């Protein structure tokens, strides 16, 4: 059996005969050894991610006195403490509220707009391209411009509200509206990516399925509900999980816009961890909170891995 690029490979071989240096041989041997190949990545993973996960879990059972630099084992005390800390509970409920809104509204919008924009005309493609733009720019830029546009006096948002005769809002500065403002920004920020994924999921549905539906004189609604949605369900599931993890780990916008305020109205789990850990140096408490967040996020990720191993392809 001859192979297509035999001659090419002979040429490499010739080239290679010249090289007999010791370093070349060692390198050549190394390439056959999977352990050598994997070493850098595995060491980096162990040193950063695995170390951090394990350390986080261990320290969450300790009380770390920074002044005396002593660590004393306190069992579940940190967990008991944070679950009695009103700020943590507020953070937990805020994060869950935020996640629920973003996951439900966000996923619905992503799928519906995906169906709407999947027409492949220049206009639809152009709008879809514009919608994706927020995803590739820095969150700092997004936060800065939305802070400016959400100014209570002379901000764009209140002006637009007044065009429709609606009362002005204090947006991210108001106790009631702060979380809603963050939800709005997160939706704006994440919509384009979701629509892109939804469209790629829709395009993966083979045409003959629709042909068959048309031959059976299936109505548009029936086609949508009985064919598009079930076939799109792996994509929808993927979107649900990534949006949910994204919502639970949101940090940048909170830090840049509200810093958990006003009056803890936008305190999130991530911000709580950061504040307790880096600002107040309560390492034990911060890591207990981090473990809670880690459990939430990794179970969501595992769920999506499990599902994708079963049948899902989202490309």
């Amino acid at each position, binding site marked *: 059996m001859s192979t*297509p690029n*035999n001659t090419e*490979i002979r040429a*490499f*071989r010739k*080239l*290679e005969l010249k090289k007999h240096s010791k370093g*070349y041989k060692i390198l050549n041997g190394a390439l056959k050894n*999977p352990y050598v*190949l*994997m070493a*850098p*990545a*595995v060491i*980096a*993973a162990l040193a*950063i*991610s695995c*170390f*951090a*996960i394990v350390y986080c879990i261990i320290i969450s059972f300790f009380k770390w006195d920074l002044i005396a630099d002593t660590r004393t084992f306190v069992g579940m005390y940190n967990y008991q403490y944070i679950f009695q800390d009103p700020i943590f509970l507020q953070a937990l409920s805020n994060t869950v509220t935020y996640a629920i809104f973003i996951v439900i509204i966000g996923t619905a919008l992503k799928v519906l707009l995906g169906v*709407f924009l999947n027409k*492949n005309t220049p206009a*639809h*493609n*152009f*709008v879809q391209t*514009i919608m*994706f*733009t927020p*995803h*590739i*720019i*820095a969150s*700092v*830029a997004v936060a800065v*411009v939305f802070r*400016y*546009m959400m100014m209570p006096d*002379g901000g*764009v948002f209140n002006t637009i509200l007044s065009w429709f005769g609606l009362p002005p809002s204090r947006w991210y500065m108001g106790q009631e509206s702060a979380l809603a403002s963050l939800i709005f920004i997160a939706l*704006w920020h994440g919509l*384009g*990516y979701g629509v*892109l*994924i939804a469209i790629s999921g829709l395009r993966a549905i083979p*045409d003959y399925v629709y042909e068959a539906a048309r031959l059976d004189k299936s109505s*548009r609604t029936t086609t949508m509900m009985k064919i598009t949605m079930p076939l799109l369900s792996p994509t929808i599931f*993927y979107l649900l999980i990534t949006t949910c993890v994204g919502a639970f780990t949101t*940090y*940048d916008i909170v830090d*840049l816009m509200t810093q958990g305020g006003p009056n803890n109205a936008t305190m999130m789990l991530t911000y709580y961890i950061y504040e307790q*850990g*880096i600002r107040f140096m309560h*390492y034990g408490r*911060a*890591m207990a909170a*981090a473990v809670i967040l880690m459990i939430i*996020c990794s179970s969501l990720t*595992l769920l999506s891995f499990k599902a994708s191993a079963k049948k899902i392809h989202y490309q």
Partner: protein
Amino acid sequence: MSFMSMAMAPAKAAKPPKMKKKESMVSKILTVLLLVALFLIFILPFYYMLISSFKSLLEAISPTPVWWPEEFLWENYQKAWQISKMPKYAMNSVILSVSCSVACIVVSVPCAFALARMEFRGKAVMFAISLSSMMVPAQCVFLPIFIMFSKFGWLNTYWAMILVFTHSGSTILFIRNAFKQVSNEVLEAARLDGASELTVMFKVIMPMVKPAIITMALMIFMRRWNDYFWNISLTTNDNVRTLPYAVKSITAATDGGIPEYAVQMAGATVLMAPMLIAYIFANKQIKNAFVYTGIK
């Protein structure tokens, strides 16, 4: 020109004989209205950011938004550049973005190769370890990393900032999948002809997975460029902080008690300009990269 034709081509090719005729006037108008609304919602912040970056101090805080400044003031950019010591931050951004992409690719490619094309003891465990970073978000694990680096005295070093970006589970997974698609026969043929592993690796396999590697390198570059979180969690001074932090630091700037919104917008524009320009010229490739890697 080529960009234009690329955008138009699929529209012509894939014109489906769908229910075109049934579309009534009402639904056409609704479609157009929705398209225009979406366009406005998503373009407005960008437009407003750009236009505000040229406003004067008073225009920027006027009680009704100024949609077109009377005079375009380029000084705002100059000011942003000076107030926040932007040259230093920009330099850091470039250094770190480039070195993180290089480091991550150099570490990930051999690992991905071994995972894709070799059978060995403990492969499952090593696979799980090398994907570990996908399981937990940075916001959970930054504190142990912060403590470790401060013990080593690595805070405020390039080294630390690069190290946290060196290992990325999603990169390894994506490149591994690319390696998996290389057909075995070609490799066997090369080996039968006596090509060394080094030759096989660099002359046969590498050209085939090059697109995947370039895609991932650009993704890491972009992630590092836009990153804000590691900037604040691994630094205590501005030695190695990058552009996003510079833009954040301008938000505190005032002129006689009046916040300098125009300067902030100028800073934000500078921060997003490289990504935006890249996106304008290669939007198809960038979108595809996000779809195929499945990375958020």
